[in-house]
């Protein structure tokens, strides 16, 4: 019996247990729906499993057992507006959104949404029941969670907040992975979005600029959630696993702080630009608007083709260094750029070290091979760490660039910066590809449901990394604008 069969079989096995916890349930009518439930994600399942202590509600409840979760799904789906997605994408994404909504908004809200739409209990009854639920079946549900996680135990911790999401993705396995970075970027971004504010609006290149929550807030929340989870798993799990939390690592490399500082500068510059614009009128205003629009334009053109990234290229990160030097010519941020290229170089050399040696080499390096027996989790952890470091350093670079632009007031071509963004995103993509092929090679003996979520995880964080880099780039726009305005004022004086 394969692992995937085991997980699938767990549904009917578990459901009755859950039903036992509920005094009001009528097993006969609700049982047939359970196999369906098994394929669903844990949080949604929980919503359905909620015991109803009120016998009066029994009649209404039992025939529609399937209904609540469906409503939850539908509502989140319509919120997200996934309409134009392909069928496989749609099904994955809708489950994913449901999961995310549950994570982000809390269990009760989903239940409430589901149940109020059915017109079942009054709010006071609800809260009483919710409280009861929180105490009562916690044993059953935590046991249940364990079982659910067993199938993907390697992932559970490693994936952090995305664990439940990936286990869904895992079911559909290969399709998603070959479905390219784009789809994953979509899910990843969506995850962040929904957690941040449940904002359904999504713009591919505009990033998080126009939303209420700042990027650093979103990341901080994610990091805090991971910290919490770490504490919990450490206390409950005696055996220590190799765990990589992107958000925590990103913070460790001071990515969050640099992002926060960059946001401060960006915000201040933005309001300065606005106040300058209010002092102008007529032709002056028109002309400045025109000039600013030109700057804005360079910021909307950023797009890079993921397919173009060649795995063979840039074996040791020296290519990136060259391109960085090119893009940063004339801006005195060499120290920061050095840090970035170092991070990149070490990521590439790690990959070389971790990749199982080619056959001829294997004979030569038999001694080293013994040391090299890395687990897939270790490779995964290295990948996440490298991505977090590279992203943090990229954001540090953007922050330093912002400071230097404001400080020196030197003319900076926006096109150079967008070129830099493309270079960095390509590097992230390249690294993720290399790391995943390394994962595949290392885990050639592993089962798919151990390996696939790890691979998905790397792609997911890579697409997130690329999004953060692009968002940080967008933060530079007001800074270039105010710098332009200041230079302009100086030249007319």
């Amino acid at each position: 019996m394969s692992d995937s069969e085991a997980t699938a079989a767990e549904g009917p096995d578990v459901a009755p247990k859950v039903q036992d916890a509920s005094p009001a349930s009528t097993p006969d009518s609700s049982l047939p729906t359970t196999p369906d439930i098994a394929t669903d994600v844990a949080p949604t399942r929980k919503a359905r499993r909620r015991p109803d202590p009120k016998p009066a509600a029994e009649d209404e409840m039992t025939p529609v057992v399937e209904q609540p979760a469906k409503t939850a799904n539908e509502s989140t789906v319509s919120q997200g507006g996934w309409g134009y997605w392909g069928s496989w994408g749609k099904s994955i994404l809708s489950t994913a959104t449901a999961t995310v909504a549950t994570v982000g908004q809390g269990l009760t809200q989903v239940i409430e949404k589901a149940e109020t739409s059915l017109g079942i209990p009054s709010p006071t009854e609800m809260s009483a029941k919710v409280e009861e639920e929180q105490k009562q079946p916690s044993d059953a549900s935590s046991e249940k969670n364990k079982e659910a996680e067993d199938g993907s135990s390697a992932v559970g911790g490693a994936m952090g907040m995305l664990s439940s999401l990936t286990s869904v993705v895992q079911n559909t396995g290969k399709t998603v992975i070959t479905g390219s970075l784009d789809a994953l970027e979509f899910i990843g971004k969506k995850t962040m979005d929904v957690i941040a504010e449940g904002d359904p609006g999504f713009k591919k290149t505009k990033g998080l600029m126009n939303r209420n929550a700042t990027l650093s807030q979103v990341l901080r929340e994610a990091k805090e959630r991971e910290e919490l989870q770490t504490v919990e798993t450490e206390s409950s799990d005696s055996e220590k696993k190799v765990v990589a939390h992107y958000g925590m690592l990103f913070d460790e490399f001071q990515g969050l702080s640099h992002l926060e500082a960059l946001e401060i500068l960006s915000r201040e510059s933005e309001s300065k630009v606005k106040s300058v614009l209010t002092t102008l009128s007529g032709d002056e205003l028109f002309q400045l608007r025109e000039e600013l629009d030109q700057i804005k334009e360079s910021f909307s053109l950023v797009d890079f083709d993921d397919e173009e990234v060649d795995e063979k290229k840039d074996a040791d990160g020296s290519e990136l260094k060259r391109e960085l030097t090119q893009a940063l010519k004339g801006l005195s941020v060499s120290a920061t750029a050095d840090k970035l290229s170092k991070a990149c170089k070490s990521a590439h050399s790690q990959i070389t070290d971790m990749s199982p040696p080619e056959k001829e080499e294997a004979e030569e390096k038999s001694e080293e091979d013994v040391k090299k027996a890395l687990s897939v989790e270790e490779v995964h952890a290295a990948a996440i760490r490298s991505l977090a470091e590279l992203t943090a350093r990229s954001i540090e670079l953007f922050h330093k660039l912002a400071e230097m632009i404001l400080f020196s007031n030197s003319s900076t071509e926006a096109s150079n910066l967008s070129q830099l963004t493309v270079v960095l995103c390509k590097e992230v993509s390249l690294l993720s590809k290399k790391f995943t092929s390394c994962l595949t090679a290392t885990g050639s003996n592993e089962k798919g449901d151990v390996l696939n979520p790890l691979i998905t995880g790397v792609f997911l964080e890579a697409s997130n990394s690329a999004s953060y880099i692009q968002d940080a780039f967008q933060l530079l726009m007001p800074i270039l604008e105010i710098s332009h305005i200041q230079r302009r004022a100086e030249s007319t004086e």
Partner: protein
Amino acid sequence: MAYAYLFKYIIIGDTGVGKSCLLLQFTDKRFQPVHDLTIGVEFGARMITIDGKQIKLQIWDTAGQESFRSITRSYYRGAAGALLVYDITRRDTFNHLTTWLEDARQHSNSNMVIMLIGNKSDLESRREVKKEEGEAFAREHGLIFMETSAKTASNVEEAFINTAKEIYEKIQEGVFDINNEANGIKIGPQHPTTNSTLPGSQGGQQAGGGCC
């Protein structure tokens, strides 16, 4: 790893007084005699324990150069504590304290705890500013005062930790509104008492929403 509170600090003062060295000594417990000029702001973080509670200090180490002032001022806002540093071997760095203080008070919240630091106390032979002068300045402006040496690590821990203690006391007294992030204080991730993550974190959210 998890913390009860996070305090944001800023380190300010003339260039070359040893701001970055103080930070390095505090976070990494090492001293670097030659340090690159800080551009804009750099960061450091360390966990400390006060009253049995884990507190994370997030330290913003600003550039001391005059020409960076307009940028570094932007970073003052939202700091719970400030280390205002001068060099006891350079009288001019002491003379500039008033300007720094005015700047800090103007661009940050009024409750910010400010610690005055006379650094390089290991260079006694080259001393230009008496300890009493530092104490008097601090008394006059309502600051805490300490002489430190980033080189020998003397009083470095104390400077950072005493500032945090003062902030912590202010929280206990209710001076700081900890729910307002503009005060430079953040509450750490809440620990749910229940076993399962979801009901727990959601319970926290409810509590947070309830007080608004």
